[in-house]
């Protein structure tokens, strides 16, 4: 497939529709079949069997955020490798695109070492 048509992606839309239909069917079926009894205690959120204390949506440990940011950085680098992995043989007649990737990975590793030295990945 040299050129991709928007119509080629139609099967995925159909898959999504089937999946969403299946889940909604299941949930509505369960809603119709199951019992519907409500009470104050039952509708409360679970917390070790005691009364829920305050709101659950509290400020959260920043380490999780840091991990997510680092993921975004590194994942972009990995995405760069996808076209390279398919095309590294198709060079312009002068060797392969191997040393360029070595250079790329070395730069990446320098950044990685900096992150480790900074202690961004230590959970204390």
């Amino acid at each position, binding site marked *: 497939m040299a050129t991709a048509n928007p119509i080629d992606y139609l099967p995925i839309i159909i898959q999504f529709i089937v999946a969403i239909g299946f889940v909604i069917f299941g949930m509505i079926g369960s809603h119709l079949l199951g019992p519907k009894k409500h009470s104050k205690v039952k509708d409360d959120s679970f917390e070790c069997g005691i009364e829920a204390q305050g709101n659950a949506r509290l400020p959260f440990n920043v380490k999780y955020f840091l991990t997510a940011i680092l*993921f975004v950085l590194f994942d972009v680098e990995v995405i760069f490798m996808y076209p390279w992995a398919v095309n590294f043989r198709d060079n312009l007649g002068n060797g392969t695109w191997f040393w360029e990737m070595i250079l790329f*990975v070395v730069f990446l590793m320098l950044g990685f070492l900096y992150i480790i030295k900074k202690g961004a990945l230590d959970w204390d």
Partner: protein
Amino acid sequence: MLLTIYDFTRLTTAIHTWLTSKMGDTLVMLSEMVMVGLCTLTFFVVLCLILVYMERKVSAFMQIRMGPNRVGPWGTVQAIADTVKLLLKEGLTPDGADKLLFNFAPILVVAICFAAMAPIAFGKGLAIWDINIGVLYISAISSVGVIGILMAGWSSNNKYSLLGAMRSGAQIVSYELSIGMAVLSIVVLSGSLKLSDIIMAQESGWWIFRGHIPAIIAFIIFIIASTAEINRAPFDMAEAESELTAGFHAEYSGMKFAMFFLAEYVNMFIVCAIGATLFFGGWMPFHIGGLVAFNNVMDFIPSPIWFFGKTFGLIFLIMWFRWTFPRLRIDQLLTLEWKFLLPISMINLLLVTLIAIMGWYF
């Protein structure tokens, strides 16, 4: 050379020509898609029932007990009985929850599973959607799944759910990196992102045998990272029952819970199918380069049997992990990924490239 018996393209072409002789082009396409959708749905449900039964029997086998043995012969109908029970339960939405997101999360998680299943080749010529970016597509789609988990955890308004979802988010995005690198090392060897090309590249032997040590290292990284990716033990921090009750789905009940449960098992199938396709040749029979007679004998075993045999072998391996390794702490989990697996997989990718360039693989 590959024998052409058991080729599913013949079956699909026959259906296609028969439909074309009856109706117009648009209608043919639509009816084919509906057929494929229904087949996927049936497959999805049957697969879940089989995997739930298998999980319980394997656990029982590992712990020297009987497992389900009351409902049906050898407990085979147990999973169906469980589904009926869950269908008859009340799907409760807590008062404090964000109603829309709370009900949308299971839909999203299952829809992602369905979509990720599309490029997988179940047999020779038996793929729903053999797209030229197959591997990239799967890694892109499966990373959307984490949004469903975060959505479920945050909208429940439960501290355990939020903790579980946050852990799961950090874990899934971290292991995404090394799973990507492990997959890329096979893409480097095959030179294509299309799953059927990757399978055809293994005609004279599977990559795990032909790719020397780096391919084996890539496989080990892949199986560790994919276990983490699907939140299975020993990486099941998201639903560590001894500390978080049930993690991100603590507030879910009835069919909504069943959807998360289904998605977990189908995700397990998907990663194992990808592993089987990349490292063990998918539906490709066991071939040894040069031994034509031996290869022809192997071709007589139908391709779906090879595919499902390999996939269920890997699924068994992942179930085995659950009863072998103790659960990791969240900091150990992230240390394992960022300080060990990521550098190793990066260097391993370069090694694989060197092998591919020098032609050192068999």
